[in-house]
């Protein structure tokens, strides 16, 4: 391990801490925070799809469950106002429970079949939220959701504290994910991904390991849901549709499934594209349209093309770099550097 490799994360970390001091545009900071949300979601989906190899499509449902759990318990909707901080754990647990509920009946399914069932689940959850309007507020959702306070400091709609909160949670999630990757459970997940039958013959309780993957992945989405609901102070079913699931999937496919650095990179790229670059580019084009007096340009909304863009990205990744931008092979290349054999496993940690 060269000192360079150790220094890189620290430099990136410091740079991320400095962002709000350099970029003073609140809309930008808000976009960075939302990108952090996508990173968390991608981490969660990566456990299920990347590590365990279970193609789950309706992942945004767990995100919705986390967000609505907080919405129910910290808003005027039912007049309940629970504290934000413990609610992170509560919503994560509720999402994890739904992860188990979805995981249990689908354990025997793999590949396409599992994808279809999870896709259905992903469609059902927003539909239920939309139609159970007595409790969920229907298509309008829940408004006036409480926003966090810490030591008397209210977050409000200022994106900066959310940005830092995301950073802190991502750091914690990174630590957890890295631990898991090189643990008994992480190896069990990957063994299931590679060959479920052989994995069972290694003494792995495949049922337990898959349920653990579903519930942990869902829990991370639940955490993202709470932060999302708090930052916006409102939730509605439209934020959790299939498109959101696809965006999360695109993030991990682009970056490289199963590799944390890759997932981080993929989610950052898709996040910035979605929350920052496309809205900004639309403004630019519209301004240009005003200058040259072209009505067509003035009404351009590039956001409408984002799913076409994700589609193109996915196709290109599949064609030219199916393993993603930063696949796990990076680690392999790293391990190939001449080292004594007994030092090799250390490099992994």
């Amino acid at each position, binding site marked *: 391990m060269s000192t360079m490799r150790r220094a890189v994360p620290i430099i990136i970390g410091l740079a991320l801490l400095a962002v709000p001091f350099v970029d003073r545009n609140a809309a930008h900071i808000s976009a960075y925070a939302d990108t952090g949300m996508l990173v968390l979601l991608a981490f969660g989906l990566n456990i299920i799809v990347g590590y365990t190899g279970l193609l789950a499509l309706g992942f945004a449902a767990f995100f919705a469950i986390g967000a609505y759990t907080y919405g129910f318990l910290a808003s005027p909707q039912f007049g309940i106002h629970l504290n934000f901080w413990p609610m992170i754990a509560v919503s994560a647990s509720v999402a994890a429970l739904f992860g188990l509920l979805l995981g249990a009946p689908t354990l025997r399914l793999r590949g396409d079949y599992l994808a279809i069932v999870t896709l259905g689940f992903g469609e059902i959850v927003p539909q239920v939220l939309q139609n159970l309007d007595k409790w969920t507020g229907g298509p309008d959702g829940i408004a006036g959701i409480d926003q966090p306070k810490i030591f008397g400091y209210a977050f409000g709609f200022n994106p900066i504290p959310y940005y830092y909160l995301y950073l802190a949670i991502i750091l914690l999630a990174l630590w*957890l994910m890295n*631990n*898991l990757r*090189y*643990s*008994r*459970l*992480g*190896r*069990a997940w*990957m*063994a299931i*991904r*590679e*060959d479920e*039958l*052989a*994995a*069972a*013959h*290694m*003494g*792995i*309780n*495949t049922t337990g390991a898959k349920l*653990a993957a579903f519930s*942990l992945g869902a829990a991370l989405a639940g955490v993202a849901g709470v932060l999302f609901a708090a930052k916006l102070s409102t939730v509605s079913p439209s934020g959790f549709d299939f498109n959101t699931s696809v965006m999360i999937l695109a993030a991990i496919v682009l970056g490289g499934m*199963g590799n944390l650095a890759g997932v981080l990179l993929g989610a950052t790229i898709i996040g910035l594209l979605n929350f920052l670059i496309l809205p900004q580019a639309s403004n630019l084009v519209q301004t240009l349209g005003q200058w040259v007096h072209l009505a067509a340009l003035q009404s351009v909304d590039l956001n409408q093309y984002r799913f076409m863009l994700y589609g193109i990205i996915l196709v290109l990744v599949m064609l030219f770099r199916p393993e993603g931008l930063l696949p*796990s092979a990076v680690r*392999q290349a790293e*391990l*190939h550097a001449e080292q004594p*054999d*007994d030092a*090799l*496993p250390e*490099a992994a940690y």
Partner: protein
Amino acid sequence: MAHSEPGPHVSSLLTLRSVSKNFGGLAAVKDLSLAVEPGRIVSLIGPNGAGKSTVFNLITGIYTPSSGTIVFEDRVLNGYRPDLVTAAGIARTFQNIRLFSFMTVLENVMVGRNARMHANLADSALRTPRATREDKTVEHAAMELLEFFGLTRYAAEWARNLPYGMQRRLEMARALASEPRLLLLDEPAAGTNPAEKQALMRLVQAIRNRGITVLLIEHDMRLVMEISDEVHVLDYGEKIAQGTPEEVRHNPLVIEAYLGKGA
């Protein structure tokens, strides 16, 4: 050379009592009884489709017997899930190599030890001192196994990048990682060259010398005859002969099964 059902053998490690397996109308294994004594190398031979691999799949819990019982060290294994069979002390390799391709060679062996590990979800996620200690031990044991099989220099390589013969060895190393008392080897010599076969034979003997009983499916007759203490011959799911390699070699039923009538 008792052809009848083995009695309550106190000394046998694995006992199959009149085990049958039907797939629809097809009887893949018919009324099979056999006893594997500890410390021996026992071979299961027979023409293609004789039901040898089905016997392995019955022992390791992929299939449940349609009738009959499988007893391992006083435990009836019928209905055990594969992971529990492994935990009970039986490990196996596969006829078609089934390694974890996109995991390193070392990780493959470490997964093999899963049944002997205790780290739970919290240990794994939080990397508790307990988990760290256990992982170190497992890694150490895995490296020792890699050395035993001459795979040390491949430790950091993806399993899929190994040459074929080495993959066969890795499967054995991975199986041994679970500290089995009985090792099932499904055609370990398939597709290997004569030099590799010799090395493999020595490995199987070395495994037995470690006190691990070996049940072997193999097509290479020279290998079977040289290393087996006992040979059971299956044909159309039924046992047609058993005995020492010498006895089996001269059994007319066996010759007929392999070469056909009038040969």
